[in-house]
């Protein structure tokens, strides 16, 4: 087939070396992450500006509990470790390492989302809804959008996991995992900020 011919003959023309020598997709994901910084900065600002200005409770002091969320925090931290080990597996062609640790990452991510769903349900039960007070509104919005990012990350990692399972993630395509991993780490560092700011400085 002519198209196939042109593919193999002109592989270099298809993806010319870039001006910086860096892959376009890696530049793009970092650009996107940079942009996301301002997204979370705006949400965190909103939370902090409104902190302590509630006209009625429950306030953070009354409702936030540390043990459960510390567990979630640890899960997210470990998942960051796991995904970078999985990436190492992908880059070195160590299929076992790739699949196992990527699977572990996904499990941790799912548990984190589960933790958050449980926490939200618990808070609603305790009388804190989105509409209850400023704390409720800004807390659910901030942590909810973080949770949405975690969920999207989990979905992304699952698709990469499936490609890996089907043997379509050889070392030269490790960037497919690296992009998802970078996004995942970013979601983790956002939580590294949210955890002390929201829970420990209540």
């Amino acid at each position, binding site marked *: 087939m*002519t*198209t*196939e*011919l*042109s*593919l193999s*003959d*002109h592989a270099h*023309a*298809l993806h*010319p070396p*870039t*001006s*910086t020598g*860096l892959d*376009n997709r890696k*530049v*793009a994901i970092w*650009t*996107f992450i*940079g*942009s*996301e*910084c*301002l*997204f979370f*900065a*705006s*949400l965190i*600002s*909103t939370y902090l*500006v*409104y902190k302590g*200005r*509630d*006209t009625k409770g429950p306030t953070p002091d009354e409702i936030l509990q540390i043990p459960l969320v510390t567990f979630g925090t640890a899960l997210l931290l470990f998942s960051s470790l796991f995904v970078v080990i999985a990436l190492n597996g992908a880059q070195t062609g160590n299929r076992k390492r790739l699949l196992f640790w990527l699977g572990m990452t996904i499990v941790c991510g799912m548990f984190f989302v589960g933790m958050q769903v449980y926490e939200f349900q618990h808070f609603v039960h305790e009388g804190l809804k*989105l*509409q209850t*007070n*400023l704390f409720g*509104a*800004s807390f659910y*919005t901030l942590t909810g*959008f973080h949770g949405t990012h975690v969920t999207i990350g989990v*979905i992304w990692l699952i*698709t990469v996991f499936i490609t890996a399972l089907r043997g379509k993630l050889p070392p030269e395509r490790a960037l497919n995992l690296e992009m998802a991993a970078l996004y995942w780490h970013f979601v983790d560092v956002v939580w590294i900020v949210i955890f002390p700011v929201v829970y420990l400085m209540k």
Partner: protein
Amino acid sequence: MATSAVSHAGHASAIHVEKSGIWSWITTVDHKRIGILYGASAFLFFLIGGIEALLLRIQLGSPENTFLSAEAYNQLFTMHGTTMIFLGVMPLSAMFFNYFIPLLLGARDVAFPRLNAFSFWVFLFGGLFLNVSFLFNAAPNAGWFGYANLTSKQYSPGLNVDFWVIGLQILGVSSLAAAVNFFTTVVNMRAKGMKLMRMPMFVWMSFITQILLLLAFPVITVALILLMFDRLFGTMFFTASLGGDPLLWQHLFWIFGHPEVYILILPAFGIVSEILPVFARKPLFGYAAMVFSGAFIAFLGFGVWSHHMFATGMGPIADTVFSLATMLIAVPTGVKIFNWIGTVAGGSLQFRTPLYFSLGFIAMFIIGGLSGVMHASPPADLQQTDTYFVVAHFHYVLFGGSIFALTAGAYYWWPKMFGRMLSEKLGKVHFWLMFVGFNLTFFPMHFVGLHGMPRRVYTYPAGLGFETMNQIETAGSMVLAIAFLVFIYNIIQTARKPADAPADPWNGATLEWSIPSPPQEFNFAEEPVVHSRDPLWETKRERGGKLPEPARVSGAGIHLPNPSYWPILAALGVGSVFVSIMLVHTLGPIAIAAAVLFFFFCVFKWAFEPAG
């Protein structure tokens, strides 16, 4: 054109025949076609915004006029502002980004061609969505900056503000996707030898614009999310009685809004910086100073937002800080103006239409810049804010600045895009009508503003001394309308002429003039190598004269990305996600889930689409 490509390419493995038909436009991933799509749709939206402005001017032509109701007036001025900013100037700039960033860089396409198509379709759907609101008589009506708490459910119970919130969210997705794409393109797709400090000034200013987009748009996204939650789910972010603070909206909006005005003007700076050297026959004066002043303007642009809020009573310290920072921006802006003047001074000026519009830009932008510095001072601002003085100011920078420069760019690059030269004669008629009409419309606004005429009010009583000035303004707006009719006439006349524009009609300095007009799908048959800031001038100098007319070649063996319909479907997915959120109380959360699933489905199909 098409036949020559075919005859050359009969035996080649990958031939590039000019594709046609509507399907080829829907699935196109060619940056040039996407640029034309951006330009055409943005120009249509621009005309809609212009008609809205004309209606406003007719209403204000006489005191206590009843041509428009107060409600209609509110919808029209809100949509005029929103349209001109988000559907006019920004996508018109995007047209030039799309068409010319790759050409000026010597690249064959942008970094992510399909993402580029996606950005366009999302923009188009967002623009159509905003304008569809007119059919429901529910066009946004709370002003282009939608101040809380006017936008709350209590004071704006209709769908008007929902259309605005959701429309802007959709457009934000488009802008962010495009910004990631163009940022990566400039970083990674430069021709061999094109170091950062050899990039054409238009690429530099566009590059800085992308950074502003990337950092400013997430903030408005969050502000709109908060407003959306207030309106749809009963939160109280901006409800003072429940502890919320309407001022937070103003802060978040202007943290976005001030960089946004540089998003509107920096591409215009870039266009003028390309045109002036070519028509003055000498290189751009102070290249490095131009780059750094542009970067400095953008950086400072993040630290001045509260000068839009002096009237809120922030307190003397905050007022002082933001006032000083704002005045500081006058310095790099002044550097740019002096550099343009330095470029023109002593040049052998070729008085063609693009130069007319560029010189008009400099003059009008200086006036707008100076009135801007005036309300950088809080005591002066308290007199001027919310009056027609401010309206005069920002029209001098956005119309006198951006639109004049974009028009200059249209005349300059038209032959490259369409292979036909726009008529010089009609172009100059267009310029003088626009120049006179613009000043008639907006200069008197300085006076009525300082006399105390408030903006955003649908009428004014007789006897306050506003009548004559307003009549002049309305007459001026008619002249402006005629100017654009002349432009449209020029376009139609030009489209009927044979496509015989030479590759390099203006003796250009940059790479796009080295290839045929219009360029072939693959842009450059051979990837260019760059040794200086004005690569084409340098080549011509070395050869001791003009370059030979570039031949149309088959481009055999040059790989180009395949057309794809997943971008438009994914864009449809984005649109349906947001619309289903807006209608959540009618359609229920199931609709959102369905829309999200559809969007994810498109993204997966896109991601796993064979690249070959």
